[in-house]
């Protein structure tokens, strides 16, 4: 089972539906105790860093997420959920992030519209292995909505060009994150979520009862 953490913000349904579409047993989970049973965890997020950080903490799901990461459970942060993995954000300096990835979340460069609300192309970081982006087409177009992004670090696996190179994804072992929305990026995004579903199915003893290859992948995912 993939737990999509439901901490009371915005549209979580799309992440759940997209994961189900690629064949995983994804469920919205709001009870922290149930996260321990999950084979994979997805932390979505929309809006702003501070309110999301507070809502995650108040829901009790923050410590559940940290426990899952400490156990090595495959973990995918999306958009603000990705930013929350870092130490903090310029957007709300008083609110700490989870701090499981080193680095800070920074504002997009000046001179370009904020937010970036559009499709953009992923530039893969050279010589960097990426399970998240395995099999994605070149060019891979994905959908972004954000005014902030994590700074580039050794975890960064892809960037996009928006007034300069901007972190688009990062990976550290089973801990993955995307600044873009794979659940809203058409067939390319579904391919990326399929990669996560396979990572979950291949990790450890608690394999999902439902096979991740149970439904045909949409064409063009390269998977």
């Amino acid at each position, binding site marked *: 089972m993939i737990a999509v953490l439901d901490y009371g913000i915005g*549209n979580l349904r799309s992440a759940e*539906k997209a994961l189900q579409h690629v064949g995983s047993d994804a469920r919205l989970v709001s009870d922290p105790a149930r996260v321990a049973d999950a084979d994979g965890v997805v932390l979505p997020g*929309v809006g702003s860093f501070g309110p999301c950080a507070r809502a995650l903490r108040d829901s009790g799901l923050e410590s559940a997420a940290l426990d899952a990461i400490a156990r090595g459970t495959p973990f995918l942060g999306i958009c603000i959920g990705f930013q929350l993995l870092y130490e903090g954000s310029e957007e709300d300096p008083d609110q700490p992030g989870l701090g499981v990835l080193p680095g800070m979340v920074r504002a997009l460069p000046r001179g370009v*519209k*904020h*937010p970036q609300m*559009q499709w953009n192309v992923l530039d893969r970081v050279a010589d960097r292995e990426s399970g998240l982006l395995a099999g994605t087409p070149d060019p891979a177009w994905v959908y972004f909505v954000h005014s902030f992004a994590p700074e580039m670090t050794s975890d960064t696996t892809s960037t996009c060009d928006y007034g300069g190179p901007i972190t688009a994804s990062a990976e550290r072992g089973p801990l993955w994150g995307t600044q873009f929305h794979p659940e809203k990026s*058409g067939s390319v995004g579904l391919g990326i979520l399929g990669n996560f579903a396979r990572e979950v199915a291949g990790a450890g003893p608690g394999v999902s009862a439902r096979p991740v290859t149970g439904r045909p992948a949409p064409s063009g995912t390269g998977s």
Partner: protein
Amino acid sequence: MRTVRVIPCLDVDAGRVVKGIQFVDLVDAGDPVEMAARYNAQGADELVFLDITASSDHRQTMVDVVSRTAEQVFIPFTVGGGVRSVEDARRLLRAGADKVGINTAAVERPELITEIATEFGAQCVVVAIDARRRPAADGEGEGEGEGEGVAWEVFTHGGRTSTGIDAVHWAERCATIGAGEILLTSMDRDGTRDGFDIDLTRRISDCCPVPLIASGGVGELDHLVAGAVEGAADAVLAASIFHLGEFTVGEAKDHLAAAGVAVRPA
């Protein structure tokens, strides 16, 4: 890289897509979920559903459409029409919409923009502005060029009610108080197939810091190019050219690309 989005708009009446000219002679154009899936397959960057159902009895019908769309279509979509409260927005977002469009309710109570933005983030607040040309009054129409001496007034209730509000000032204010995007429809051009009101589009794009969707008047593919280039819109919206089968979204994007406008290839 800045890429321009191409957005088919689906007017939905009691659960069916309708097409018509300036809201008269509505004809059934199909099932909204099937049409959404078709436009997704054609390479649409986003979709806009506009619930034009007159009766609130059918409010749940739209929520069902949103829910079914979210199960099948994995690109962003906005739902507007009848959103009057944070609870209305919550219902649509929980059903799977990415953004909600607000129009009349935002003019009547601008705090609603801030309330929805605070609750769910500015990225999901699209303020729809229906604007009509009028001679400029003092303090308006200060721009230069062809738009000089002209201003645009905001109308609400599907274009039936004048407000006296200047559209350029209203767009700027919306961005300040929480709108993440502006959906700008020229009432003078809507349904005419004469192309966007470029002066209006340009004026608002130049002064408004958030992304702008140009709407109203597209009858041929060059109109999309004009909206993106001369109008400086971040996204171009059209309905009838797609619904009537004159052009696919892919053809629209090929045309934009050939004119030098960066788009996500279909």
